[in-house]
């Protein structure tokens, strides 16, 4: 049986309300205190600029802190911003607000860590990178397009709201193809395909089929479905030099944009 005195004391459980109130007020005051000042960003940018090498990647955590690009934008070119993975980088400089971490560094151990006000700069070394023998997005001037107007690589948003640096290929119901001559074929061909979020969000039509030919011999196909998992395609190349053609077809998907990126890699780094 519960004693009346104990029950009477339970009345003070109501104090929880006041405690929650105090915590709420304190947190509401504290949250903006964690906001980085411009000077913090600038110091981090200077520190990275002093150390950064061509195959280093700069990331901001959390992903939504886009104001950081005002200070770090010169150190993070668009193609880095639109990366699919970290296979072609040596190191990552992670500029994080508070305790935020980037998904790409979660399994890595920081080599160094420096604080600049409310910003923490960490440096990570990645496993040995893949060597890019040929980057198709860099050779768009040499490419021959059939069934669409050739355009330079740019950023497109995928279904996961990530910016992706891709070669844009509009889908019209017919096959669109893009050919590159004199491609070194020593290694593997690795890449990704996405459907532009804006056109694919209603989930109508698809999937998009990407077929890859070397000297007009098909070496593989890759299917890209709306809201399907993001997965790279990777095919062994026969060696030597030749012509690579990407053929994109989506018979029932009109007025949509497909984007693809591909490299010939000598030592693929896998999905890291």
């Amino acid at each position, binding site marked *: 049986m519960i004693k009346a005195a104990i029950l009477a004391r339970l009345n003070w459980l109501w104090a929880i309300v006041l405690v929650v109130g105090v915590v709420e007020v304190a947190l509401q005051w504290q949250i903006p205190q964690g*906001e980085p000042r411009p000077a913090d960003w600038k110091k981090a940018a200077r520190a990275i600029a002093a150390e950064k090498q061509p195959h280093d990647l700069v990331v901001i955590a959390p992903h939504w802190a886009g104001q950081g690009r005002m200070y770090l934008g010169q150190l993070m070119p668009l193609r880095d911003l639109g990366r699919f993975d970290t296979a072609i980088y040596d190191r990552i400089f992670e500029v994080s607000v508070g305790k935020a971490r980037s998904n790409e560094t979660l399994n890595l151990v920081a080599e160094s860590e420096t604080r600049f006000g409310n910003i923490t700069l960490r440096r990570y070394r990645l496993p040995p990178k893949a060597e890019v023998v040929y980057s198709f997005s860099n050779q768009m001037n040499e490419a021959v397009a059939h069934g669409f107007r050739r355009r330079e690589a*740019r950023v497109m948003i995928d279904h996961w709201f990530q910016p992706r640096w891709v070669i844009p290929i509009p889908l019209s119901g017919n096959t669109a193809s893009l050919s590159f001559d004199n491609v070194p074929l020593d290694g593997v061909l690795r890449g990704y395909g996405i459907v532009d979020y804006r056109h694919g969000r209603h989930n109508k039509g698809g999937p998009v089929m990407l077929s890859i030919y070397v000297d007009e011999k098909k070496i593989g196909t890759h299917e890209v479905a709306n809201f399907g998992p993001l997965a790279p395609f990777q095919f062994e190349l026969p060696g030597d030099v030749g012509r690579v053609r990407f053929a994109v077809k989506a018979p029932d998907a009109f007025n949509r944009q497909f984007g693809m990126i591909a490299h010939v890699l000598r030592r693929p780094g896998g999905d890291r």
Partner: protein
Amino acid sequence: MNGPSTDARQGIHLPAVVVASAYLALLLITARPVGFSRDEGFYFKAARSYQGWFSVLFDEPGRAFRRESVDKHWRYNHEHPALMKVLFGFSHRLFHQSLGLLSPSTAYRLPGMVAAAMVIYLLFVWGAQLYGRPIGLFAALAFGFLPRVFYHAHLACFDVAITAAWLLVCYLYWRSLSSWRFGLAAGAAFGVAICVKLNAFFLPFLLGLHYLVLLAHRRRRLGRLAFKDGPKPWAFLFGLLVAPPIFLLHWPWLWFDTFTRLGRYVGFHAAHAHYNTAWFGENIIGPPTPLSLPVVMTLLTVPSVIVLLFVAGALVRLRHYVGRRLDQRLWSFWPTFGPPSQNGLDLLVWFSVIFPIALISMPHVPIFGGTKHWMPAYPFVALVAGIGVSHLIATVANGLPRLPRRVVQTLVVIALLVPAVQQSLTAHPHGLASYVPLAGGAPGAASLGMTRQFWGYTTAGIAPWLNENAPQGSTVFFHDTSAPSVEMFRRESIVRPDLQSARLRRADYALVHHELHMIMVEAWIWSDFRTHIPAHVLTYQGVPLVSVYRRPSETR
């Protein structure tokens, strides 16, 4: 007895008017930094168009009633009833054009603010009548300082107005259960409510359900309906008689092709477009609405103290029904408060909390991501939270017997309002970005992938930078800010009048309002401007709301 005693009524209305007036004054003082939302722009334009008809009416009454005049002036924005837009227009005519007391936008917004003050007044009065003035005061201010409500209360929109009308109809309906006069008032108020916004058409379902439950309970208790002494259906009878004529009379658009236009009005909302809603990192654009969306969004945006007090208040009232069946000793630490429910008041309050939230939770109701769509539930949430406060006052007073009870009341009410007031004022004028600190505030919500804003109103926040940095005659892509809202920004010199609105391709500056479903706009800017480095970013608690890009000279 039904309704409050004469004693309880004494000395309530004057303080209620004072508090409501103070709230209105606060809204007026704080209106300027609140940017013009997308919908406001459309309503400004509609208000102007409708005033055009009134000008014709005043000048040539005969011509005003001709079909061509009605069609010309009332066609614009005919997917919503006209009442609020008419009031916006008259307020603009009186307080800006005639008296010059208010800026054009504030004059348009005034009726919405008055509606917010009405909720404050009604909540104060109803809460005080039922449970005493401290509870009325707490309920009124707790509602007024819900951060999202505080934001919406500034706008020339319908959401706070329908909340006021909804609350008024519920109050009058409850009083009408034993008074035909209140029944007449309830019928008329319902007529006004359906002139404010479509939501009001659902009120008869809520109140009808309540009435049926009351009758069923009575029959079970007495073995018969005993209709003569029981709750009276005056509100329904007068609602049927009075409301339709009010609705038809207030809206000249319906005076011609009445049934066709009524059909289109209902059809528009029955097949309403789904709004994009960011929901834990996904963008919801079609049915089904996640069942938990309104509840989760309420928990994430209503100050946690008020949620806790709401739960406490609900349990306190629930004890009237559950507690008496249990061992009294178990409940001794949890006493009840207030008299037993009269005419099913508790049930009405519960229905009023649950109904708007349940309605929007239905899987095939078009997605309405904003908390404003279930705002009519919030006054009742505040009222129940007030009951929680009452018990806390009693506990503190018992624990501190030397302090006069009035001092305890004042201190407890103020202490419990501080979180809501602080959150409202610190979030101002970015109310839609406000999330409770226990969820991590705006940064926490951004990490969770929740909606950061909508309506493009945050343009006001970047205007000072734009005015200072953009050369004379620059062109600006204003992204989600609607053309009429941009026009108002320029008219009031919030944005420099020489800055021209332009499409992205022709713009010298481009804004991107950070909303998940419009993330591609930023990628378009990167491609077109050939830069991904913003020139300026407006943040709230460190979370970007608007980024501004400057076109590099080489891409012109």
